[in-house]
């Protein structure tokens, strides 16, 4: 088991203690389960959650609309020169082909996001933080990178617009 406490003795003791406390607890009944689920599960929306994880020297990308599927950076096409460590994820949004390009910093605690699109005319993108727009790319393809990074503490949302109408929304989270 990987240790949380650097002291293996304390880890073993904490586990014994936790197992004892678990034996003293109660199973969850159906009504309590439903009540808890209402508070922990986000309300259904059309937003897609994209979760970037840096573990064991590689990036893993999870997406809420891909059932049981994850992408590891070793499986991703890395393109571009001088873009060491960047990786891209291809998405189709309302029939449009979009690429999200993720550029991590060397410390792996920030990831810069670019949005690239073919047939990009009339497409724009806006980045939201806590529901407030913080940055806009008025025309995709020409200046596609956002200055505000995805960080461990902030989980921005990206909205894609076509002729001013929202066609897709993504919520990014980072764990490293």
């Amino acid at each position: 088991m990987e240790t949380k406490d650097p002291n293996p003795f304390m880890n073993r003791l904490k586990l014994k203690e936790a197992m004892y406390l678990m034996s003293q607890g109660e199973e969850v009944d159906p009504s309590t389960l439903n009540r808890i689920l209402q508070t922990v599960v986000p309300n259904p929306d059309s937003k897609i959650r994209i979760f970037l994880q840096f573990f064991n020297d590689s990036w893993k990308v999870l997406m809420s609309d891909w059932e049981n599927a994850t992408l590891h950076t070793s499986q991703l096409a890395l393109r571009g020169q001088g873009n060491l460590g960047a990786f891209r994820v291809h998405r189709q949004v309302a029939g449009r082909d979009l690429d999200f390009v993720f550029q991590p910093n060397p410390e792996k605690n920030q990831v810069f996001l670019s949005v690239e699109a073919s047939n990009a005319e009339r497409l724009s993108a806006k980045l939201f933080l806590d529901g407030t727009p913080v940055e806009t790319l008025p025309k995709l393809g020409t200046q596609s990178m956002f200055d505000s990074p995805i960080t461990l503490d902030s989980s921005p949302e990206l909205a894609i617009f076509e002729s001013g109408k929202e066609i897709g929304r993504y919520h990014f989270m980072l764990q490293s």
Partner: protein
Amino acid sequence: MSDEIRSLIDNCLLGKREAWQTLIQKFHRLIIGTCAHYVPREEVVDTSQLVYLKLTENDYQLLRKFKGESLPAFIIYLNEIAKNISMSQTRSIRRTEYREGISLDLSIDILDGRLTQEDVYFEWEEKKEFYDLIESLDEPHKEILILRLKGYKFKEIAAILEVPIGTVLARANRAKEKIKKLQTKEIKP
């Protein structure tokens, strides 16, 4: 097993209902058991609800901080979260009782028992010295004293360590004797 717990947590982070359902069914006993150890019985349900709320705060930030891949590591992690929330809830209950004047006797006790900065420092020094002494014991004796310091009764310690209560009492006595001798420098660590 390791892939299973990592995948469960990942799916919870993506906000998937089935994953949360499984997580709650697997770990509710642990959360309730931990809360029940630290807060009064009538506060257990509310405190356990608070644990779940904290897990979801800031886009599941607490869950995101768990980087392990094994079930035991997650059990320890969740136990620590539930313990910290319960302890802070206990302090908050005491403060509320004092503010609202529900229990004047208790409020006076709290005021009387309030430590000065100097007291806090010396208490910390003593504790540190004591923990240093405990460190020199062997594991079977050390674990009993640590659990006693965490407020467990001997009967509970016997259950945690899965040894007869007689063994716990005997080891606790031997440990105390050794600590005393170490303190008086009768023996060396």
